[in-house]
Structure formats: C-alpha cells, structure tokens
C-alpha cells in the first residue's frame, strides 16, 4: 500500500489510540458512524469557545463570524459533491431527515392516489419507511426492485417496474448491509428517460466514493455528517435548485420566512426555506472541517487505499474456516458482511469485543435484506481509510477464537 503513511493518518484520530479490554481498539464499525479527526473536534470546540452566537440575525461581531463560518462550510460541502451552488445544500439532521424532507414536501405534492413509488430490496429502513408512509397517506403503491443472491439489483426488473404511474425512484448509492455499489448512472438515466425524479440515499457512498451529484444527475442526494468523519446530528440534503424552489417548505418557524403577518407568510429563499429554527451551527462547521480534512489528505488517495484494504479483508476472511460472506456484488465499497458457521452474529460480536474489535452485528436496519438471505442477522465489518491490514489480521484471529469458544 505504497506511499500511504497510515500511522500519520491514524494519529489524526484521537479515539483510535485507546485500548479496549486490554487490546488496541480495532474499529470496524465505520458504516454505523466514523471516527472524527482532530481538526473536526477543534472546529466544534472553537465555535463554542471563540465565537458562539446565533447565525443570520445578529449585527454583532460574534454572530457575523459564526454566520460566515457556517455559510462557508455550506459552500465547501457544495463543492465537495459538485453541487452547482451552496443554496442547493440544505442542512438537516442526517440522511433520515433528508429523505423525510423530500417525502413530506416533494413527495406529498407529486405522488397521488394510484401512483407508484419505486424503491429497492436493499434499502435501509430510512429509505423504506418514509415512502411507505407517503404511499399509505396518498393511496399510492410502493414497488420494490429485487436483488439477486450476490446482492446486486436486477436491472431488467427495475426497467420493467418503471411505468406511467411511477412518480419517484428512491435508491441507495451503496448498500449499508452488503456494501453493494449500485449502478446509479444507469438507474438515473432510465428514470429520467421517463421523466421520473430520483432520490438517492447517499449515507454510505459519500464517505467511500467520489460523489459528483451533477455528473450523476441525481435530483436529490441525502447524506449524514457523522459517517463522513464529521459530527452527529448534522447532514445534508442536496436538491436541484429548480426542484427545491418549487417545493413547499418542510417545517415552519423562525429563519425560514421572508415576511410574517397573521394573514399571510411568505417564505425565505433557498436554502433557508428548509431550515426552520436555529441550526446545528457547530455541526455544520464541523462537517465543513471534515470535508477539508478529506480534501487535504486527497480523497482519491484515501479511497484507493480503502479499496485495497477491502480486497485484502475479503481475501483474508475467506481463509478463516467457517466464514461465509453475505453479499458478493462485483462492485462494493467498505463493507464486508458475513456469517461464522452457525454461531449467531450476536455471539460473534461479543467475542470480538473482548479482543478490542468493534463490528456491527444485527440486521443493520435492513430487515428485507436479512429476509432475502433468510438469516436473522449478519456480522458486518466496515472499513475506513484509517484501518490497517494488521487490524484485518486481528479480526481474522478473533474469528478463529469464535471457533475455539463454540467448538
């Protein structure tokens, strides 16, 4: 893995220095939340220590400073995913809120009785339930693109599902349970050929792929800050300006208005129209710092390292007796999902934890995926660029220990 100075990178993440149950922490739960580099922690602290003030309304020095840093973060995030303007970046709590925002504004005005919303079998619950709720409310139908046993979407079925009643497609770029990278360019092209807008769940893709929302031509693209090495409680909904402008507001309150009288309220401009109330200011600034970190390190370099590590991990795990991969898509990012013999993943998780190794065990908020493979749960190791081959080796040793305990 050549010129990549992994120790230098790891030193930027304070949490990685600790020992857990007497072993160096091996953190393989990055798909749940990623660890934060020092620069992010400093940016958050600096907001509270140096210039804590509310934004967009003060005429005083601190407020101007806070506003300028918050808005500058928005601008850097817009460039990071290649949005055409900062106004297309709506700050939300996370991917879940981003999707809910689209469902309850754009979705509510677009989807009616007898219409159809297309999602896929591999969606996270947060890209299922909001659409289900919308369909129930409107008397619309939820249609599901099936996947094959490798964990790849069946594209011919997708093409068949799109029809004159389809009002919207919602799909994840990368599956959180399987790591599958979906062929989004093709899916979006198909949908657009029929004039159908596409909402993308980008929670797992923005941290692990170079995402260009304009090249993809995504209509909406939601992601979370905390999986992108930023703080929890902040995320982004990208939307094409024309769509955002035509949409009704999401929540009503302060900051999202232009003028308010008891007879009539006029709404603010983008992005403020969708950002009622005081924002998670430190969060937005912290997320801006996370983006700065990734760019300073060179995102492509980080991702190339991650891909090599994923290939190494898949190979190494395949050599551990009893380990069976779940999801073997040809194009994957970050995630290895697996089973260990007939040992329940929950037991695997406990044994690995005793070795200082953190993985996720469970259904990964993707119960239909578990249903597909007819398992109640899987073990999931999800990698980040600060992980090492030695950590993968430790995981494999830990899995051999599972065998020892369970005989």
């Amino acid at each position: 893995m050549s010129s990549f100075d992994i120790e230098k990178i790891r030193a930027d993440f304070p949490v990685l220095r600790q020992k857990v149950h007497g072993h160096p922490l091996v953190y393989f739960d990055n798909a749940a939340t990623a660890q934060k580099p020092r620069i992010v922690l400093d940016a958050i602290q600096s907001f509270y220590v140096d210039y804590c003030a509310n934004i967009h309304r003060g005429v005083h020095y601190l407020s101007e400073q806070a506003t300028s840093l918050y808005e500058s973060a928005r601008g850097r995030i817009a460039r990071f995913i290649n949005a055409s303007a900062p106004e297309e970046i709506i700050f939300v709590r996370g991917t879940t809120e981003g999707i809910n925002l689209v469902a309850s504004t754009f979705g509510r005005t677009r989807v009616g009785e007898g219409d159809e919303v297309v999602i896929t079998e591999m969606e996270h619950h947060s890209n299922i339930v909001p659409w289900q709720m919308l369909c129930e409310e409107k008397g619309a139908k939820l249609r599901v693109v099936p996947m094959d046993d490798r964990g790849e979407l069946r594209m011919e079925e997708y093409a068949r599902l799109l029809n004159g009643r389809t009002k919207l497609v919602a799909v994840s770029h990368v599956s959180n349970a399987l790591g599958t990278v979906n062929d989004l360019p093709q899916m979006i092209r198909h949908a657009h050929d029929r004039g159908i807008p596409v909402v993308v769940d980008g929670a797992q893709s923005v941290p692990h792929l170079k995402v260009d929302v304009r090249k993809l031509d995504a209509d909406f693209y939601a992601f979370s800050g905390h999986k992108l090495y930023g703080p929890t409680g902040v995320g982004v909904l990208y939307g094409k300006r024309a769509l955002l402008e035509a949409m009704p507001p999401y929540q009503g309150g302060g900051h999202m208005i232009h003028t308010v009288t008891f007879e009539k309220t006029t709404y603010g401009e983008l992005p403020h129209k969708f950002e009622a109330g005081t924002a998670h200011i430190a969060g937005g600034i912290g997320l801006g710092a996370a983006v700065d970190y990734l760019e300073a390190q060179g995102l492509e370099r980080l991702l190339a390292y991650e891909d090599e590590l994923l290939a190494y991990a898949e190979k190494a795990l395949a050599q551990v007796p009893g380990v069976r991969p779940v999801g073997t898509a040809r194009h994957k990012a970050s995630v290895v999902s697996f089973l260990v013999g007939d040992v329940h993943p929950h037991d695997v998780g406990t044994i690995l934890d005793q070795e200082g190794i953190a993985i996720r065990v469970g259904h990964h908020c993707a119960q239909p995926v578990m249903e597909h493979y007819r398992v109640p749960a899987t073990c999931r190791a999800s990698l980040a660029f600060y992980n090492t081959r030695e950590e993968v080796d430790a995981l494999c040793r830990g899995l051999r220990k599972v065998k020892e305990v369970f005989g």
Partner: protein
Amino acid sequence: MSELRELYQQVILDHNKQPRNFRALEGATHSANGHNPLCGDRIKVYAKVGNGLVEEATFEGTGCAISKASASMMTGVVKGKSLEEVARIFDNFHRLVTGDPKANTESLGKLAVFSGVCEFPARVKCASLAWHTLQAALTRAGSTISTEGSGAEDTVG
C-alpha cells in the same frame, strides 16, 4: 478469555447446540411471542398450566447462544412450579444477570451458570427474553412482547 468462558460456560454452549423442549406445544394453555428487534431474536414460548402449576413449557425460534440456552434451561426449570414460584425465580434470575448483589444464586440452582452475563450489559436482554416472554404468556395469553417497548411492564432489561 476468562470473562468469555464465564459467559459461554459449557452448559450454555450445550443447551445452545441441543436446546431442550425446542418445539411447539400441543394443548398449550398459554403462549406468547418475544422479540428483540435490536438483534433480530424471535421466540415463541408455550406453557400448559393445570391446577395452578406449569405442567410443561416449550419454545421455538431463533436467537443467539445466550437467549437460546436461557430459553432451553427455563423450560426445564419451570416444569412443575406454581405461577408464583415461576415469578419468584424470574425475579431472582433477573437480579443475577443484572449483577444485583441481592440475587440469591444458591436458590437458582443450574441457572447460576448465567452469572457471567452481568459482565456483558448488552447481553442481559438476551438472557431474559425467554423469561419475559413466559411471563407475558402466563399473565395474558397470546401477546407479543418486545425488548424495545416503551415503559410497558413487560419491557425487557
């Protein structure tokens, strides 16, 4: 390894591999479903009650080694016990797995093998799922309980 050995004692591993009373119960007078949505554990517990005694108890479902072994051993332990005794054993068992010093380990007999669970807070729900489900079955037939309910008396953990 020592804490792990405490948790996964041979008896527990044995019951996990070959669970006892692992079947639906014909002629059951009581049953309930138990669900731990966090790890996907689902079990169904059956009981046949006559003359105020649990004459027989069985279970079905999927779960981790701790929840399966706990269900297996529970169905053996409660056989022939009165409903009050079952409630008392459960109370004591719950104290044991949560590390409550007031737990009376001696009176728990074989169930004392679950003492290691208290070192693993995330696993307390696994150990107690079957017991909560049995309680639900005995107190109101045919209900479903969840480890993630909100404030209900049968919420686990």
